[in-house]
């Protein structure tokens, strides 16, 4: 399957790892779970002895809270800035717990209550009337029937009325189907993992009643420089390979770029000695990848094939000013008070282009 598709589901990509964990796992499993909570933790965080690659690099306690929540009957809401692996973790948790990460609802402004509960095959409905054949279950209803995990991505993008349809599902663990004169009750093992973006609240805030049905786990932005460098480099090279491009990326450039992102994001230099102004825009790892990849394209198509600080700076300006042009002040201030004093070719290249910023 993996050879034919662009992106196979996690349970297919990580099938061997899941099987190894199942063979190792002697701990008690909650009802409906394929693995015990400890085995799920190893799948997510990795285990060198069992040759399990880490899927998430970060705070172990947060992952433990997420897993412990799913083992209860309270739902899990993963929140965080864009680009902090919320969907990634949600996908991998589902795969580990119930071997199925595909029961997913994508929240948008156009999501309706039908997509949360059930809808109908209208041709069959008209031909046969309401029946099990004509009922089209939502991923949530399917998960309830089979005792699995359902995923609800970007829940806050849905309108409040649609979000609130979840309240009764999460309280009573049941969906009424009046057309078929029955109530469907969730099997043990059913739960919901939702994700929400803390930066862009979408159409509506969640109601207090709905919030109380969730335990919240915030996934923070990567703060370790080496880890983020590795992710940025790896992901950029994957994207270059997809586009069949070869561009030289120096380690110095990656380190400088990631340092800029971390320092602007955290509001202080990495040595902790100096505060810097943070722009209002998102400075996620995904943005860093985008900037570096864009710089590579500039270097390849309009340069000499070697990406440098000038290429990156042009993309950086766009990344920072995409929401508010006044964020450029933060970048200017950073370049004047921090970058200017640093040695290194790339730092010099970044600083020298800052005068060009003033003309914008």
């Amino acid at each position: 399957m993996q050879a034919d598709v662009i992106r196979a589901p996690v349970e297919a990509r990580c099938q061997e790892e899941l099987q190894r964990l199942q063979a190792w796992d002697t701990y008690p499993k909650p009802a409906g779970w394929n693995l015990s909570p400890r085995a799920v933790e190893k799948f997510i965080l990795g285990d060198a002895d069992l040759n399990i690659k880490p899927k998430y690099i970060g705070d172990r306690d947060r992952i433990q809270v997420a897993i412990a929540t799913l083992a209860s009957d309270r739902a899990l809401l993963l929140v965080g800035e864009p680009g902090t692996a919320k969907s990634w973790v949600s996908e991998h948790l589902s795969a580990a717990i119930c071997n199925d990460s595909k029961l997913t609802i994508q929240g948008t402004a156009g999501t309706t209550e039908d997509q949360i509960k059930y809808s109908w095959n209208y041709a069959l409905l008209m031909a046969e009337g309401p029946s099990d054949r004509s009922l089209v279950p939502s991923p949530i209803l399917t998960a309830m029937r089979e005792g699995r995990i359902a995923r609800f991505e970007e829940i806050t993008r849905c309108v409040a009325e649609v979000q609130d349809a979840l309240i009764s599902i999460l309280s009573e663990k049941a969906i009424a189907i009046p057309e078929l004169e029955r109530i469907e009750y969730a099997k043990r093992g059913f739960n919901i993992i939702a994700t929400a973006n803390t930066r862009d609240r979408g159409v509506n805030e969640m109601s207090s009643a709905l919030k109380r049905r969730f335990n919240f786990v915030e996934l923070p932005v990567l703060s370790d420089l080496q880890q983020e460098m590795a992710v940025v480099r790896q992901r950029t090279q994957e994207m270059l390979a997809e586009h069949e491009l070869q561009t030289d990326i120096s380690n110095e450039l990656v380190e400088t770029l990631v340092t800029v992102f971390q320092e602007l994001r955290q509001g202080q230099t990495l040595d902790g000695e100096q505060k810097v102004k943070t722009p209002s825009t998102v400075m996620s790892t995904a943005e860093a990848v985008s900037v570096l990849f864009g710089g590579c394209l500039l270097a390849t198509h309009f340069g000499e094939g070697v990406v440098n600080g000038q290429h990156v700076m042009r993309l950086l300006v766009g990344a920072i000013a995409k929401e508010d042009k006044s964020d450029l002040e933060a970048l200017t201030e950073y370049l004047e008070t921090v970058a200017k004093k640093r040695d290194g070719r790339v730092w010099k290249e970044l600083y020298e282009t800052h005068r060009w910023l003033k003309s914008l």
Partner: protein
Amino acid sequence: MERTVRDASLAQVALSTVRVRGVHVVPVRHHSPAIARATAALIRAVRPRLVLIEGPSDANHLIDALTAPDAVAPLALLAYRQPQARQASADLAPEVVFYPFCDYSPELVALRTARELGIEARFCDIPAAAVLEHREATDEAPSPTDESPAPSASAEPAPHAPEYRLSVYDRVAQRMGFDDSEEWWECLFETALRDPNELLLRTFEWGQLVISDFESSDYDALRNAYMWKRVEESGVPPEQIVLVVGAAHAAAFALPDFRAEHDPNHPLLQARPADFVLMPYSFPRLSEQLGYGAGNRAPQFYQDAWEFGSLEDATLATLTRLVNSMKLQGDVASHADAIEAFRLAKQLAALRGKPQPGYRETIDAAIAAFGRGQAERVEKPLKRLMIGERIGRAPQSEVQPPVQAEFYRLAHELRIPIKDDPTDLRLNLAEPHAVQQSIFLHRLAVAQIPFAELQSGEAATYGQMARLREKWRLQWTPLTDVALAEASVYGNTLREVATRKIEPRLAQRDTLVRVSAAALEAVLCELPELYGTALQALDEASIRDADFASLARAAYQIAGLIEYGAARAVQQEMFEPLLQRVYTRACLHLLSSSDCGEDEARAVGEGMQLLHELAHKLPYLETGLWMENLRETVLSERAQAYVVGMGLGLLGFMRARDEELWRCAKRMLSPATPPEQAAQFLEGLLHAQSGAAARSRPFVQTMHEFVMQLPDALFLQALPMLRRAFSKLSNHDIHYLTDNLLRIIDDDVAAQAEVEAEPLLSREELEHIWAQLAWMES
């Protein structure tokens, strides 16, 4: 929930628990509810004739007070000695060591149980005087947060080296896969071992593990030998003695080669005696989180565990109380959240292999259920609930609390009058003695002790500090003593109290003005331990501040701090980089701040003058950056007129003969410019460079042409603003202005005479107009 103290349920404790040479040894970890319960159970079961406890043997006279019915923990035995020094100094504080006790301290539980059963109880460790002597001999200056090296700390064998103390326990914990020793203890001991026998045995084994990892010092050997000597010399058969000591000491006693021999004439044991006071202590001070020793990160949480019987009950109590705390801070919370949080805490404990939820599970569950994933939402209320705010009550206090004693001693040594009539004291800070007086008085002021009030205005300006003189009004009242006694809860010394008062203000994300004020107080009180925090707070506050005027004032204050530094141990290189950053930020924000209303323009103008002075005065500031931004602002179309005038004046355009700047000036004084704006421009310019303006004939010419072209109605409208503008001129400036003006008028008259038979306005009339503008305000 019924609040009763639950002792161990076992009626009989097996007499095969830890015995060393026949003595019943209770190996303890200090401030552990489980160990405290086991201690009480063992004493009740054994019913010894004598209970010996690791504590200063020169404080035995205070045991009755410590266990009195009206004594409320937390309490502390404070041992102190007056220092021996030649010169009076604000920093010459008493040497002190604290021995804190709370309800679940095994030592206090042992004392109380012994009293209840009518059993004799004594402290058996080396005297506190020896501890103080040891500190002095090893030249270890206790930090403001350093507590007793003896029983108040965890049961480490070498407590004189705080950094070493941490590494031993944390190393052991990390070897077993835990993040730190607190979590390790809670997981393997506090929650896991219900049976008191097993708990004490495992604690003893832990003590053996610790001493195997650590090389005993002479000091430790002396303590161990001294304590066991008390056992041998008690005259009580070993099997009728219960010895309550730290686990590492217990393990040391059990070593095959252990000997209780020590030199009774050891220098430490011959130290001059210490004084004691039994005083209230507080949970915040007990908390490890506030930097105090004693290794108890959540005193109230463990108090709940002690009172309700288990950590699980403490978890439930904390999460239940959190509901009201969250509501009080305006958050939505209900008991349903508490129920869910408790369930999650139990799940987490199971996942982490703990039989009961504890400290970490409580916090993690609170964040997930109450905090919606955000730790900062629950951080403050949780901290209050888990650390607690309890303050103990001592039944009596025979000796003055240390801060009070320090006040009277220093006032005497520094020759500061203590009278109940107001008395003025003038200080010239060029004299070292006056500097010490100043530091002492500023610390009193920061500690909010009603005694001294600074009279020479707010000493938070560069001007004040540069003059290096202070005037204080002093007056003692009974409130002075009350405040001094209360202040002892915050610290042992005035320095500590001042630090604790200022530090939170630096930690708050407050305005730049307030943070600057707190930083200045830290300098005035000479608290170099806060300079790093002050730097960070100032840096962060200036980052959040996008207002040019505020940044300029802050830069000026920081420059003042550096100027004042010589008298207050402030090193220039510490604050210089911060000044450079604030200065750079101010320069970069000038343009955006210049687009403002008339009221704000005055503040911006004041900031421009301050920054201009700094830019030209301090060689390590980049003058070019300021001048570049100043020019850009002046030439910008959106800058307010007063700001433009001020900027042109500071740029010295009249002397520089800069064509572009001259055009700007003429544009501002052109007929197309609204008179109010032109007047504001003039005001700004004359404020910055009145002398140069008055001397510059071309500029006076331009001003004259502007005034003359105004229609009568607009002239009258602009008159108040013009008068305000010209009010800045000195007599000297007026002389030059008049001279130039008269020459211009003469030329005008002559030019008009060539064109017309009679001038439109006579010379007297022209003079009269100018007289209204300037001379009436002089």
